[in-house]
């Protein structure tokens, strides 16, 4: 999938940065918060936003060799980049904002040999263990995860803060490390569009569903009359 338009920080990822900030501000000893992304040159904008929200520094993996990677290859490339940072905790957002894909965390975790959990909406640090809550298929689960771990957070975990003007102005001064595949030991035969194991072919249009009726509410009494008539016609009242 062509992600070249993806430049700004994915709104789901702001929840991950906020979660990191809350752990740090909550009294757990955190050495530093590092924002990591993979993408074209323009992805630095996402990193600027990330450090304006509180990350201490950032790492940008950018290399034509990784362009067009599928989920599995992207996860591998990110994991290689993360290895160099030797993190205690990797936090991700719940999904990308375009791809409806909520699986990258599981791929990264497997490459790091770390336990992982997605869609986490409550995260407490108890020593070397994380106590996580999330909604799974049968209700809410509470899971203990040992560090180091890879956690994807759901959007209900927190209300991300807005960066202050000062933080936005200062963002460009925080250290930004730009790396290519060779810097982080990425085997280029495993990444990029041509080496990805899932091969995306031409898109087609979905079967067309007849468009529904749309009412713009200007006069609510009239709108309601129309709704009632519509429901009545279909014997729904």
């Amino acid at each position, binding site marked *: *999938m062509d992600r070249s338009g993806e430049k700004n920080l994915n709104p789901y990822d702001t929840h991950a940065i906020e979660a990191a900030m809350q752990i740090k501000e909550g009294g757990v000893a955190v050495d530093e918060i590092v924002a990591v992304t993979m993408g074209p040159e323009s992805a630095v904008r996402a990193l600027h936003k990330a450090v304006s929200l509180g990350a201490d520094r950032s790492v940008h993996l950018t290399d034509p060799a990784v362009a067009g990677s*599928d*989920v*599995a290859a992207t996860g591998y490339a990110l994991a290689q980049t993360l290895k160099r940072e030797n993190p205690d905790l990797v936090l991700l957002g719940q999904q990308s904002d*375009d*791809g*409806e894909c909520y*699986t*990258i*965390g*599981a791929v990264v*975790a*497997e*490459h790091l*040999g*770390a*336990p*992982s959990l*997605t*869609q986490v*909406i409550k995260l407490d640090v108890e020593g070397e263990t994380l*106590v996580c809550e999330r*909604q*799974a*298929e*049968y*209700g*809410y*689960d*509470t*899971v*203990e995860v*040992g560090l180091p*771990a890879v956690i994807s957070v759901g959007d209900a975990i927190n209300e991300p803060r807005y960066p202050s003007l000062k933080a936005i102005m200062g963002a460009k001064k925080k250290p930004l490390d730009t790396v290519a595949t060779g810097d982080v030991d990425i085997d280029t035969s495993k990444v990029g569009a041509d080496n*990805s*194991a*899932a*091969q*995306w*072919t*031409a*898109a087609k*249009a*979905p079967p067309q569903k007849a468009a*529904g*009726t*749309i*009412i713009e*509410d200007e006069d*609510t*009494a009239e*709108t*309601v009359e129309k*709704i*009632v008539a519509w*429901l*009545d016609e*279909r014997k*729904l*009242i």
Partner: protein
Amino acid sequence: MANILVYALHYEGAVNKNSLGAVSEAAKLAGELGGEAHAILIGDGAADVAGSLGAYGAKKVFVADAPAGLAGPAIDAMAGVLNGGDYKYVLFGGGLLGFEIGAGLAARLGAGVAMEVTAVTVQGGELVAERPILGDSSISEIKFRSDIGIIIGRLNAFEIKQSGGDAAVENVSVELSAQAGKATLRTRGEQRGADVDIEGADVLVAGGRGLGKAEGFDLCDQLAAAFGGNSAVAATRAVVDAGWYPYAAQIGQTGKTVAPKLYLAAGISGAIQHKVGMQSSENIVAINKDANAPIFEFSDLGIVGDLNKILPKLTEAIKAKKG
């Protein structure tokens, strides 16, 4: 031979409906490929339900003795079975665990993975997965270059079909990886909030974040009461996670699947994960102040406006109509 392995989720003595759909689909596809569909169940109680999968077309069912409910042990168990057998594809029904296991397995095996798949076809002796993208406005086809291809279905994508038959049940032992041992369930399947029934309702008034606060649900309750009869109130994950409404009323990916005569959404954006749980409703009506909300793409009647203005008047009008 090109066999297909299916992950089957089970809980409290029942196999998940999406897993039954995946087994049925795999049996059909394996038939076309000239192979067999096999399934794997993990954890306590797996042996009790294993044999039942034969009816959906599984020829063999593996019962893995490992903790259930988390991805790690399942990845270990499935990697073991796949390495020791003749498999070309792995299929998952729609579900949160399936996403995690499928993706982790892809990384372990160096395999390609396609997710949110709505249909699978056989082309030239290979499986091709159809995956809607960009808010379902387009469908991509995904093929695999790897020895094994992993396909994760969208919720309710695969039809449950009983083809009859018996499955051989085989126990497998699992050597847990270090990472799998580092995650443990403290509690599973906790129900938060009242136990409400939305699955049997003919009319569902569903509320989302657009209600603004927990009290906003009063507007939905009143409208549902005005419809009377077999009506109920439902919710999105956003408001359930916020504690505004009980989990039992949640529709979607990690909630219920419903198909009432009338589904009326108030302040719901229409995210894919919500849509998959209600798109089979007979009539879909949506009220949203944003004309570009995705829900209007699949509504039969869409009202662009403020629910705070519309819902109270609609409630009155329906009461008046019913007399």
